[in-house]
């Protein structure tokens, strides 16, 4: 059930992950029976709009949801075979930063303003490594150099506000990779950056992956970023997986009407200009009242073709071709006909 990755036990395996939050307005079904896996050395791009559950998923993997009466997490998250959902919080804390690490969208708010960049990297490193301050500082200098910060020894003593946006994101990455994590999750790592800086950061992530052979999950709303950096793509909608497969396969032969809608509604530089953009009607649902059946059916152009099941039965994420899975009630032949006759000509 993995993507086109080589056989064997996947390094990260998420199975039937369900995360819900109890609020005064009702239960928020943020992630609903989500399954996917990532191998070492590969990058999975998770795309979805706000409220699709992509960030909640990454926080669940990192064990960053405070569980209790209001938050419930079910299913399995296996990191190299070890289940993180049932593991004690202590244990997950030990793995976090050591074997798995995370990069956030806004590096300014995820760094402490009153400590120098160097102090923060040193501290993150020493949590997991019993080394002297001096040794940790040498390591921090190496890390800043690795992520492309000029004059790293001097810049260690700067405070986060003295760094530009791109440099802060580089410093965040340095902190995240300080213990050579085997899993790196990047949540919208370039969204706050300018396009030329975004290109630099994506290059850096590619280089680091080559160097550390880690598994990377990149969460983004930008299909261009996914196409540029990922091996596999997972399209999420209303907390559920809609489509999952190799990135070249999905971009060339998408089979889910939501993926079609996303691909059709973006403006792109590599295409002829169109007079009117195609749109997905309506807006994403509230996660308190997720539509029954296929969550996308109220906005789906082709729901009539799927019959009454569309609004009553949740379609399983089923394999459409090797390594390419789609959660849609439309028969495979019908989807391929629509893709060929109606969708591809508009892309």
């Amino acid at each position: 059930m993995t993507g086109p990755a080589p056989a064997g036990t996947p390094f990260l395996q998420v199975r039937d992950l369900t995360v819900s939050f109890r609020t005064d307005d009702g239960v928020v079904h943020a992630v609903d029976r989500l399954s996917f896996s990532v191998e070492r050395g590969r990058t999975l791009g998770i795309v979805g709009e706000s409220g699709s559950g992509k960030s909640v998923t990454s926080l669940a993997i990192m064990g960053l949801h405070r569980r209790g009466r209001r938050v419930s997490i079910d299913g399995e998250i296996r990191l190299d075979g070890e289940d993180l959902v049932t593991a004690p919080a202590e244990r997950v804390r030990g793995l976090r930063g050591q074997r798995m690490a995370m990069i956030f969208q806004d590096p300014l708010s995820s760094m402490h303003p009153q400590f120098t960049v160097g102090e923060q990297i040193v501290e993150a490193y020493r949590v997991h490594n019993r080394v002297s301050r001096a040794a940790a500082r040498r390591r921090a200098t190496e890390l800043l150099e690795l992520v492309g910060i000029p004059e790293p020894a001097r810049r260690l003593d700067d405070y986060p506000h003295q760094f530009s946006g791109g440099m802060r994101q580089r410093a965040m990455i340095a902190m995240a990779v300080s213990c050579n994590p085997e899993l790196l999750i990047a949540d919208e790592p370039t969204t706050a950056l300018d396009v030329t800086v975004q290109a630099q950061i994506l290059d850096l992530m590619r280089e680091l992956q080559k160097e550390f052979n880690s598994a990377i999950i990149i969460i983004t709303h930008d299909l261009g970023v996914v196409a540029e950096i990922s091996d596999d793509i997972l399209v999420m909608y209303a907390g559920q997986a809609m489509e999952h497969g190799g990135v070249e396969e999905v971009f060339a032969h998408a089979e889910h009407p939501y993926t079609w809608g996303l691909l059709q509604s973006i403006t792109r530089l590599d295409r002829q200009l169109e007079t009117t953009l195609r749109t997905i009607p309506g807006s994403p649902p509230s996660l308190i009242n997720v539509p029954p059946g296929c969550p996308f059916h109220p906005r789906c152009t082709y729901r009539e073709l799927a019959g009454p099941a569309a609004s009553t039965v949740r379609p399983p994420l089923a394999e459409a071709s090797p390594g390419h899975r789609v959660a849609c009630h439309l028969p495979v032949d019908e989807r391929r006909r629509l893709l060929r006759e109606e969708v591809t000509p508009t892309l």
Partner: protein
Amino acid sequence: MSDNLAKDLASPAAGEGAMPTPPADAPATGAVPAATADAGALRDRPAGGGDELVRVTDLTKLFPVRRGTLVRRGAGAVRAVDGVSFAIDRGTTLGLVGESGSGKSTAGRLISRLLEPTSGSVVFDGQDISHLSSRQLRPLRRDIQMIFQDPYSSLNPRHTIGAIVAAPMRIQKQVPRRGVRDRVRELLELVGLNPEHYNRYPNEFSGGQRQRIGIARALATRPKLIIADEPVSALDVSIRAQIINLLDGLRTEFGLTYLFIAHDLSMVRHLSDRVAVMYLGQIIELADRTDLFSGALHPYTHALLSAVPIPDPTSHRRRERIRLHDEVPSPLNPPVACRFHPRCWKAQEICRTEAPPLLERAPGHQVACHFPEKRDVV
């Protein structure tokens, strides 16, 4: 879209040409022929040459920076916009692109006169508005409206959307014949909202719907120019296209003129007739859309275009990769001569000593570079 609104927009206050013909069955059509004549007269009025609605010349805005707490002394100034010149023709869209710190938003605020220029001039519809007082500006506020990036902070959460959309008309004392409420309903319908939601509050609407409210408010006074500063960048992918189509449709329907400020190059390409690229407060390239996106001449434009991720995983094998080093320098202390030279791979001695003027290298295609070169990087 609403025929009534089209008629309303063609009323004397609108004073704009290119209005759709009102329907024969609409009531009170008596006012319309006069309006059309009025609009025609306005259009014939010289507006600084051609059919220009806006002409900006050598526009400069300095923000002084002071240091020291006890003895405040000047420590230079941020040259946010530095000698910018361009024109926007009636009924067209100029896209203004650039990275953070390029001065694109400041330029928008100078043209809407939310800011006063340090030097240079803004001529709007034949009138120099560069240094008008806030009282003198008031009638002008009708003609120039803005749409902001953040649909959350740009709507007052304590006002109903009816009150928000009606506010510009009340301030301008522009009470339509059929009353404010009717007109607000028309506007809401025009932007694709349910007119019955008049009494709801902004928090009851999604981001895309709020942006529609902001657009309805901008249209309320029947403006000639709309300055849209990153109008879709806070919205979800599937909602962006809806808003872009709405803006596009309104432009055609009412002959609006847009200044569209954005960092997303593919969006700018979709919506603009002409595109200006800014870098550290200056325009470095200005051309028709097609010329800019398939025949850019400035190395910075090449780098920008090359950095845009293309949603096609096979494209990187064919695309040329231009990677700039470092980031945009501080506008407090910009590089001398050509401001791009420290990051430019083509920089020669002259680039460090002499600022390249913005010159027309091909018809309608201006570029500020000592070594312009046509290159297709998409």
